[in-house]
């Protein structure tokens, strides 16, 4: 086999490329900045693999078309950004109730309202706490490089099928628009098991099937909700992903995800050079959140700093995860601004000096 070939590509295109290579041949979407390269790539490349690209009349239609396709068991996806993702929340809730697998990408943009088209992490709560109605969770993956956008998109399809769940890939305008080298690869598995006993394929030689989230009979709704909860518990047990950098000797641990984690990595390299023992915990799965990693780490390191491009969202989950005697500082910048490595160098050094 020849050496893996690098390609120079935009984050959004890396996602689209990964999806097609993962066997996703059905895409439904509606234009919105800063993710338009995803539908454009799909429109150009899906016909060649016998797939189907459809531009819907709204994000509401996109997510419902995705319900119709996901029910047949094929790999399928949609993508959008903040305002469009808000419109899809009803559909997310139905995906959860109906237990259908699919992938949604949110290349988030600043809000609230129409907001701006630059990067933000203001959609953290909406992503992990459930933006739609009911007691449900999505798997939320938070890549921080072009390569990881590619890798986690493939992982998103696998996890969606493993748990019959909607998987959200949460990026932002920085990650979607940045152009960098990635190494594309082909996964072994490019389709779900065709023998799954819930697929809607027409009742040929078997009893008719139904995909529904309506449970009116006495006790059935509670039973269904406990069943969903058991699934979320399994996810927390088996499929948490987290990256730890230089935490072994760290006196201060920074917690950050996505593009901010990337900027933090540059800042930490600089503070380490200046002799400060600082580490990084980067949650890759925002749900399931790496609670155990933080609990364990909090047993030996007592000082934490959470950095986010919002006014304080993931910091709540960090505080809930750590032992009560840990000190948690927060540095946040709301939609409309992006911290530089120098900003973060200053914040980290100042926090460190106060220890």
């Amino acid at each position, binding site marked *: 086999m020849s050496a893996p070939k690098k390609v120079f590509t935009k984050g959004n295109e890396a996602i689209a490329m990964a999806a097609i290579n993962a066997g996703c041949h059905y895409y439904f979407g509606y234009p919105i900045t800063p993710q338009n390269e995803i539908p454009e790539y799909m429109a150009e490349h899906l016909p060649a693999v016998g797939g189907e690209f459809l531009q819907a009349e709204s994000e509401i*239609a996109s997510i419902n078309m995705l319900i119709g396709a996901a029910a047949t068991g094929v790999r399928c996806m949609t993508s959008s950004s903040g305002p469009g993702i808000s419109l899809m929340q009803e559909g997310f809730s139905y995906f959860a109730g109906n237990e259908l697998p699919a992938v949604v990408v949110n290349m988030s943009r600043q809000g609230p309202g129409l907001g701006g088209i630059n990067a933000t992490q203001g959609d953290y709560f909406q992503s992990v706490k459930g933006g739609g109605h009911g007691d449900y969770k999505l798997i939320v993956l938070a890549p921080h490089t072009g390569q990881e956008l590619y890798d986690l998109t493939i992982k998103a399809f696998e996890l969606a099928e493993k748990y019959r769940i909607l998987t959200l890939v949460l990026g932002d305008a920085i990650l979607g628009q940045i152009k960098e080298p990635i190494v594309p690869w082909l996964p072994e598995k490019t389709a779900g098991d065709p023998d799954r006993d819930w697929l*809607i394929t*027409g*009742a040929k030689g078997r009893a008719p099937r139904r*995909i*529904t989230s309506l449970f009116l009979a006495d006790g059935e709704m509670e039973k269904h909700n406990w069943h969903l909860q058991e699934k979320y518990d399994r996810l927390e047990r088996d499929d948490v992903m987290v990256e730890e950098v230089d935490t072994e000797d760290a006196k201060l641990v920074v917690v950050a995800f996505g593009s901010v984690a990337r900027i933090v990595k540059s800042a930490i390299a600089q503070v380490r050079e200046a002799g400060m023992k600082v580490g990084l915990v980067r949650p890759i799965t925002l749900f399931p959140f790496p609670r155990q990693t933080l609990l364990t780490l909090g047993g030996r390191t007592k000082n934490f700093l959470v950095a986010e491009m919002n006014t304080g969202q993931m910091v709540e989950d960090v505080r809930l995860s750590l032992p009560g005697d840990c000190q948690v500082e927060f540095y946040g910048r709301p939609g409309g601004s992006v911290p530089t490595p120098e900003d973060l160098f200053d914040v980290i050094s100042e926090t460190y000096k106060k220890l």
Partner: protein
Amino acid sequence: MKQVFKRPESMTDKPFHFCPGCHHGIVHRLVAEALDHFDVREKTVGVASVGCSVFLYDYFAVDVIEAPHGRAAAVATGTKRVLKDHIVFTYQGDGDLAAIGTAEVIHAANRGDNITVIFVNNGIYGMTGGQMAPTTLLGQRSTTSPYGRDCNRDGYPIKMTEMLAALEGPSLVSRVAVNTPGNVKKARKVIRQAFQMQIEGKGFSFVEVLSTCPTNWGMTPQAANDRIAEEMIPYFPLGTLKQKDVIDVL
């Protein structure tokens, strides 16, 4: 003894939960008869909507997906784009299709998505208890128009069949009723034609069926049935407004 009448294969033997005098049972049967006629039960997917017909999956012996309120046409589009050789139909009421789902049905029709939409119009929200629908007639009382529908406040009853017939996409757009044996026969024929259009790949087919809601109209089944002829049909005239023939397809 020769059996002369039986339940269609495409129906289950579960008794309907519908109120006495409601037309849903008749419409369910006509759809099932059409599926039997073309022998497509085993490759049909129904898309249920939200309203009295949400329990579609209890009565049809086909695979069924439940759609969020109003979104049945979009869900059906997604399914049909994957299962191109299957028959995909939605079954929606007037609240579901003509209010919250207006955008989805118009765009599915305009794209000519090769699905069949059965639109049951009884001019009221049945399941939620008799609220005003977009198709509620002027002056008609409902729980949210207690003094009667007023065109200045609520607008006029919406004519979906006429609207959809104006689009290029659909292969068949028709309005029928099932209030008399003669109308049932005509409705049977049109519903069959609608599925034939889909089977022949001619694109989106739409049948509006005028229906009663004796419970929420506050009428006996007989009076409700009479109201179809006296009040509904004069405003919502029956007939096929659009049908693609061979020449159209060429």
